[in-house]
């Protein structure tokens, strides 16, 4: 990436008009809504947004109201990246033919974990392979929330959802979270990063970096959902912090495949004693409550084990001890 790093102050951000407006119907404590507000603070000029079906689409576009102060398109659940392809192709050729102004227009595709890890993955992979110039923003609330908390490929091991309930025989979701950002890096993308809304400056900076890439960029943002996680709505941002502090959701970026921890996670690599146990993050979330029962002790240990293992793997990728 050659572009100079964008510098901004809190005041700049506060003064910048919102493109994702208030008045939407998101629940109290909805981190995805906070994420979108922050993401749209990072735009650098005219921007078209296309969004997959899911909570954020539904809460922001109930006709005849809209929360979008920028052109916005929704078509279906699995189509965010395909839409972005079409929008980008149209802008390119219409500019070339002189039908619209030559001014650059950024394209952001937004989808939840369902619209990204699962049903939208093919379209995403195809659009990235074709090299369209767009930023794909995944807000990851770790389940299909819009339809009532069903498991997705992004739901973590052990979590109870309505299609992976914690029952007497099966203690929540048995499968592990798909390492999606790594899959995107395997597409040879110029810019892939993860972010968490607690570290909002880091998040905004990464959005801007993604937009500056001439080609596809991918940003995976952690986004707690108090309804789906059965957690206190006042604590969504706190969980965004804890997920990073426990290394459940490390924040990093990979420029041309070179992994680099971002400061909040980098600190933990330098001072491992500050890394918190996963239980600090899991406790208080209803979706993990069953894991604290004595009979599920192994499950809790397994979550710690897989978290440590993935963290070690990440450190290696970052050339850190």
């Amino acid at each position: 990436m050659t572009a100079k790093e964008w510098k901004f102050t809190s005041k700049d951000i506060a003064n910048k008009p919102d493109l994702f407006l208030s008045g939407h119907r998101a629940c109290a404590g909805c981190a995805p809504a906070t994420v979108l507000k922050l993401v749209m603070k990072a735009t650098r000029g005219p921007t078209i947004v296309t969004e997959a079906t899911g909570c954020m689409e539904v809460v922001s576009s109930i006709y005849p109201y809209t929360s979008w102060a920028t052109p916005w398109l929704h078509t279906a659940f699995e189509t965010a990246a395909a839409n972005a392809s079409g929008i980008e192709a149209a802008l390119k050729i219409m500019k070339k033919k002189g039908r619209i102004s030559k001014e650059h227009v950024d394209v952001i595709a937004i989808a939840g974990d369902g619209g990204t890890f699962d049903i939208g993955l093919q379209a995403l992979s195809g659009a990235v392979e074709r090299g369209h110039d767009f930023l794909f923003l995944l807000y990851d609330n770790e389940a299909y929330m819009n339809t009532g908390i069903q498991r997705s490929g992004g739901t973590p091991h052990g979590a109870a959802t309505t299609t992976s309930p914690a029952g007497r025989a099966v203690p929540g979701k048995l499968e592990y979270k798909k390492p999606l950002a790594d899959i995107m890096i395997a597409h040879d993308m110029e810019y892939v990063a993860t972010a968490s809304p607690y570290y909002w400056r880091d998040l905004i900076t990464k959005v801007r970096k993604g937009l500056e890439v001439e080609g596809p960029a991918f940003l995976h943002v952690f986004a707690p959902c108090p309804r789906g996680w059965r957690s206190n709505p006042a604590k969504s941002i706190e969980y965004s912090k804890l997920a990073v502090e426990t290394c459940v959701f490390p924040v990093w970026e990979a420029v041309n495949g070179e992994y680099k921890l971002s400061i909040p996670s980098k600190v933990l690599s330098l001072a491992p004693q500050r890394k918190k146990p996963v239980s600090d993050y899991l406790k208080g979330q209803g979706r993990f409550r069953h894991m604290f029962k004595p009979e599920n002790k192994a499950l809790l240990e397994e979550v710690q084990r897989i978290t440590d293992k993935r963290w070690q793997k990440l450190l290696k990728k970052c050339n850190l001890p």
Partner: protein
Amino acid sequence: MANIIKQKMMALAGDQAVAYAAKQSDVDVVAAYPITPQTIIVEKFSEYVANGEVETEFVCTESEHSAMSASLAASVTGARAFTATASAGLALMHEMLFVTSGCRAPVVMAIANRALSAPLNIHGDHSDSMAQRDSGWIQMYAENSQEAYDSIIQAFKIGEDSNVLLPVMVGLDGFTLSHTLENVETLSDEVVQQFIGIRKIPNVLTHEDKQSPFRLDPKNPMTMGPIALQNYYFEFKRQQEEAMKNALEAIQDVNKNYGDLTGRKYGNGLVDAYNLKDAEVAAICLGSTAGTMKTIVDKLRKEGIKAGLLRIRTFRPFPSKAIKSALRNVKAIAVMDKSMSFGGNGGPAYHEIRHVLYDSESKPFIVNYIYGLGGRDTSPTQLRTIYDDLQQILKNQTIEEPIKYLGLRE
């Protein structure tokens, strides 16, 4: 007819004719995915792109689902979008067809009509597009490659009409037309572009009572493809029906204007009647079958039999009035369907024709022939039996078998 424009004869298979028409229509974005028997269209268009013969963004998607999504997105961004598919590809697009018409995106799509699996079959019938007849798309079926060429050009003009704003699919029979070389009269690029013009984006009224272009425009932010619930959804759908009604007019106008320019008119644009005026028995069909049927009608006429043919060129919107009027004197009618509606008592064209004629004063006999599924060849001899049957019905004044399968082992 004096002012017919000079044209150039080219030897083109149906698919090539379609690709050539799309090329001449100054399409901005083509997002497509290959499938037999449509593949030649995508290939041919890729060639145009590779040789710099078109100013088009070609998006070679990873599926038809994405091809339709990208076409739709390009269209609502303001581009003229074209795509093509068939069979399984059209079935995979199913979800997005409704979204495209619902978003009022005038995408044009060629369908090289082909059977649906299972069993797998790559040959021609109308199962694929008939299964999409309620998807909100205008549907036209070409009789030959010439008409496929002409219809693609017309489709942009029809779909982009501000009173219509609907996507249009143009069917051409798989292999029979898609892969068969024909002499096709072609217009010059300039004439085609003059006829269609650059895509005009209509203005719509915003919530602030401002006029705003109906597209994704950063200067006039618009929310497209919103969620509309019990209180608004219904009105959106009703407007689509109104647009379909308007399309009946637009198709006729475009057919007329195009005819004045080129000397080629396809009936009134909706239906094409052949020897129907005094006909007592008539068959009704779609697509390439009409060519063979016309030669049979000619033969019968020579034998003194008052036979006629009605070809439905536009299946959606269904031209009820035109059909009723064309058939008002016919006493026995055979509707030919190249697709099935399992358990539905006959094929889709039969259903619609019977529906249209239910309250007709002439109360004709109406029977259904299902034929040609999976590309099954139907010989002129077999086709002639349709008229023989109709005469028998007239003679006996009764229908023995309302639904028959032509050329089938039973």
